[in-house]
């Protein structure tokens, strides 16, 4: 069986830097450049099959692999946390195939790959936020056909989404969309911010960092360049609003962060803590320093 020798020599040591071959990286970089040039527009790209499953962040991983250099410092979060299993797995992947330095601190990271959250700590110029996207098309649940939705984008024909939000109001008295809340980028393209809670939507607006969105299974890349206006859709009499909690974080006492709820006993007792683990730990340390 001659094929087997090839297989064993393909061990981690012999993969190209950051796993993807250079030609593929160039193809992805071209897609990223186009995406940056047309903010919010979904650029089709020749997404590769990655050694992690579709739905686990293959789009984000390909984007990160295409942009990461040897001097970069990578942070990977899932649900805001650095230590969730999938974040650990992706961080390990890059530590292995790119030998890149990793961190959990938002401040020092140059590339932050994330699923479902934008860090609480404000991002700075020069940082890149890479979001993993399951369904890049904001209109998909209203119109399942790609051929149709591409036309709707071409014509900026977004009435169907406004109607859907209006139906929410007619039915519930408010817009009930909680995450993956649609936005308009630079006044032109409607964009799915990926399934971040709407709590994070305001952070996308005029953010000094570059936002790159990668959808592996659907083979699309899109981007929001630094300082680009990103508006969450709403109505004059029903302005966009974000989640609020009456509790504060049980660990750091924050009242400004997105809180995760945990059930801590059989009677359903609840505990609220920050979803952003780095933000929470930084605050706890500052508090301890203040006390000592």
């Amino acid at each position, binding site marked *: *069986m*001659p*094929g*087997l020798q090839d*297989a064993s020599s*393909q061990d981690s040591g012999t*993969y190209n830097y950051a796993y993807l071959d250079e030609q593929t990286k160039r193809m992805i970089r071209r897609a990223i450049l186009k995406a940056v040039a047309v903010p919010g527009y979904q650029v*089709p*790209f*020749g*997404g*590769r*099959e*990655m*050694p992690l*499953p*579709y*739905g*686990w962040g*293959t789009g984000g991983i390909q984007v990160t692999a295409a942009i990461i250099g040897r001097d970069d410092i990578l942070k990977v979060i*899932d*649900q805001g946390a650095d*230590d*969730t*299993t*999938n974040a*650990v*797995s992706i961080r*390990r992947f890059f530590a292995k195939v790119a030998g890149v330095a990793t961190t959990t601190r938002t401040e020092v990271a140059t590339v932050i790959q994330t*699923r*479902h959250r934008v860090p609480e700590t404000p991002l700075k110029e020069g940082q890149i936020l890479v979001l993993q996207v*399951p369904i890049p098309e904001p209109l998909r649940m209203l119109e*399942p*056909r*790609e*051929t149709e939705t591409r036309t709707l984008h071409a014509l900026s024909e977004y009435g169907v989404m406004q109607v859907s939000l209006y139906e929410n109001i007619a039915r*519930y*008295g*408010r817009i*009930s969309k*909680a*995450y*993956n809340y649609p936005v308009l980028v630079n006044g032109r393209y409607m964009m799915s911010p990926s*399934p*971040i*809670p*709407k*709590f994070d939507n305001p952070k996308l607006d005029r953010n000094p960092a570059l936002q790159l969105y990668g959808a592996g*299974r659907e*083979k*699309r890349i899109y981007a929001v360049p630094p300082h680009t206006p990103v508006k969450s859709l709403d109505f004059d009499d029903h302005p966009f609003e974000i*989640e*609020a909690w009456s509790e504060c974080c049980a660990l750091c006492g924050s009242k400004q962060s*997105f809180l*995760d*709820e*945990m059930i801590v006993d059989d009677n359903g007792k609840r*505990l609220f*803590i920050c*979803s952003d683990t780095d933000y929470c730990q930084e605050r706890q340390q500052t508090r301890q320093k203040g006390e000592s």
Partner: protein
Amino acid sequence: MYVAVKGGETAIANSLELLADKRRGSRDVAELSLEQIDQQLSLAVDRVMTEGSCYDRALAALAIKQARGDLIEAIFLLRAYRTTLPRFGDSRPLDSTRMVVERRISSTFKDVPGGQVLGPTYDYTHRLLDFSLAAAGERPDAPAAPVDAAQVMPRVGDILERESLLEPPPAQSDDRAEDITRAPLTLPASRPARLQNLARGDEGFLLALGYSTQRGYGNNHPFVGEIRYGHVPIAFVPEELDFEIEIAEIDVTECDMVNQFAGSHNVPPQFTRGYGLAFGHAERKAMAVALVDRALRAGELSEAVSSPAQDEEFVLSHSDNVEASGFVQHLKLPHYVDFQSELVVLRTLRAEVDERNRRAALDRAAE
């Protein structure tokens, strides 16, 4: 303090250890060799090579062993390996008339040039468990017919085509073949891109779609013009030379399905084709592909597009089992941030309803 998500790193490491242990099973039982999988689970190897888009029996056998026989997982493993391989170029198109057939049947004619060759098939087995297989034992070799490798085996379709009863296959273009593993699928897709998608598509999904056409959801009255299985040479023209070199021989199953067609305003009534090709011996797959291929030609042939199997976007977007398996199973990943968002909204909505009901009750009491 209770923090459920801590310790991901150790948990993953331990999980990998456990998995490797489970894969090996009881150490009292001899370990499977790749040769055994290749030789004795050969149809599983064929399926993994077909849907994994990589013709390498040894690698497919390795993937099956590593995946503990989960063929979709094995297909994923093989594909993730394939994606890292360099591309040297495109082979010349396969010429299946040069196939050395092991099996070749047509259901449209009693006899055809080259003859009907039954070959190894489950079709006429009685599905009775053969308990003699439960014990190890040697089998005598089967009788073999003499093989004439030089014999050209004309396709049944070609014969019908000569009388214009069957449409010709689409004209050959000299362009480089499309590759849906390198460029994103755009819709509407070309037929070559569509056939690639179907060849990689999940056998179960395509089988069900093909079956649905037979039950009236986009029926095209199919006949098996021909199914053939055997070895075909592969030729390649290296860039630095200007002549073909035969580089290998592979086993494929080809199905040419002949379908009714009433004709349209500019085409007289004639039979139309559905085509399926799979690596190894995979008749069920090749037939399903041929049925779905024909169903997807509805638009091109001015037929009404009304059934799932005729809907190109529906079929091509959902045929891939590695994509489907990933996205379905990603629901196992944590979603508690989104869920928390939903909880906040749901609680707000419920509080509003409660408040409304309370006020209504007060109003009623006041009356």
